[in-house]
């Protein structure tokens, strides 16, 4: 009820009305007759974008934990490689990384007979393992840096209390240090995950038909340019909205005193 009442302020009513006019105008004057024909492909593209995002965010974050930890407290032989990795990943364009991995590794592997004869070869001939690898590394590189700061920011006393009560190093990490670091990093991670979503269209350049690739297929087939792109923007916006909502819920699990 209160949410509804908050929407019914004068300035908001005006904004809603303007938006409605825009939608109606788009629906009436633009061409949408291509949609039924491309709907199955578009849904497939949407599905690919979503799982590409989910898999690379999960795997990338799992990698970011040791990367952050190594930089925060690791000995030099762990912290230096971890820092170098994050610097290289953050300092080069993702598009370049995707191409280097796909064209580089992809043309290197066939040179080795034992790879060509392995069980994995049928997969290594496709594009998606390289796409997942590149996007995972990218997310790990950025989030490794975020987690470094998050680990370092957990107050000393919190860890000291864990030690004073006899927690083993692993229990301390699992029960106190990691949860608090994640809690600190959540707002940043939310933003970075949305950035990751918006990085996924880059894999269209190595022939993976995700959402963006479907839009450009429509353009090539029908010479309709703007309508598919508008719809595409709307889809990205919707996914980003869902992500923002999920991260807000996660952040709210531990209330903060303001």
């Amino acid at each position, binding site marked *: 009820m209160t949410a509804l009442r908050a929407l019914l302020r004068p300035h908001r009513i005006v904004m809603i009305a303007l938006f409605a006019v825009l939608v109606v105008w788009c629906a009436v004057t633009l061409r949408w007759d291509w949609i039924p024909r491309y709907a199955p492909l578009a849904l497939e593209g949407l599905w690919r974008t979503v799982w590409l995002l989910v898999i690379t965010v999960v795997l990338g974050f799992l990698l970011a934990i040791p990367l952050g930890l190594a930089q925060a407290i690791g000995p030099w032989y762990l912290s230096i490689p971890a820092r170098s990795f994050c610097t290289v990943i953050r300092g080069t364009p993702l598009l370049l990384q995707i191409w280097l991995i796909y064209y580089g590794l992809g043309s290197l592997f066939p040179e080795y007979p034992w790879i060509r004869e392995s069980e994995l070869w049928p997969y290594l001939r496709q594009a998606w393992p390289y796409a997942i690898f590149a996007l995972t590394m990218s997310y790990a590189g950025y989030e490794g840096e975020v987690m470094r700061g998050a680990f370092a920011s957990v107050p000393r*006393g919190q860890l000291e209390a864990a030690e*004073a*009560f*006899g*927690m083993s190093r692993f229990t301390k990490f699992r*029960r106190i240090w990691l949860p608090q670091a994640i809690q600190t990093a959540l707002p940043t991670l939310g933003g970075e995950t949305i950035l990751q979503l918006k990085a996924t269209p880059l894999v269209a350049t190595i022939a993976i038909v995700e959402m963006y690739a479907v839009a450009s297929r429509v353009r090539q087939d029908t010479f309709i340019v703007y309508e598919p792109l508008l719809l595409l923007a709307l889809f990205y916006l919707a996914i980003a909205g869902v992500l923002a909502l999920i991260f807000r819920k996660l952040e709210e699990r*531990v*209330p903060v005193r303001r």
Partner: protein
Amino acid sequence: MTAPIAAQTVADRPATQAEAIRVEDLHKSFGSLEVLKGISLTARKGDVVAIIGGSGSGKSTCLRCINFLETPSSGRIVIDGEAVEMRADGTPANRRQIERIRSRLGMVFQAFNLWTHRTLLENIVEVPVHVLGVPRREARDRAMTLLDRVGLAEKADTYPAFLSGGQQQRAAIARALAIEPSAMLFDEPTSALDPELVGEVLTVIRDLAAEGRTMILVTHEMKFAREVSDHVIYLSEGRIEEEGPPDKVFGAPTSERLKQFLKSVS
């Protein structure tokens, strides 16, 4: 007021009670700075030992060496008759042993150090469940009893950040009690509190002393130390300058430094 305290002299303490904590010739250096220059102390079961002294006297460091939050440079520490295995440089030789001993010592910090990402109840069941292996239901029931005891039962599901310092410290005491400690270590438990909140925390500690818990208490509250302790140790520049029953230490100090110190804090 003085009569009951006078009765609690060292001589009157039952010497037959087992030793809970024994520290022998404890040294601690930070780099070239020697903070502790040979401290020995003993707390028998049921003893309340108060450590007083000016800032920088080493009293907190001494307390933190007992559960190895600070690594002693040399010395011997015996908890419940079990000597902590130490290497020549004072570092603990057996991590498992340290963890086991720590889980028997209930520590209360100056800055409370409640875990901020968990509610009070979760803070209190954390160690029993995840270190001592107590079944969750049992740990919860016990935690509720303890929260009730420190007057925070209705705050069980509140996060520490929403509580006053006094409430946080009382919850931290409940957390220390939840492990059923063989001894409790208090590191200036009221120093971070607003003056009007000190009383509620001291009341809880006083009750614990009255029920015969073994405690080592580093404190700036001289009146309180005199009232609850069986034995007072005055540290100055890393050495025990004077020690004895509270009435003697506070009422008839012999060392010049202690006289000066008591004058400055009164």
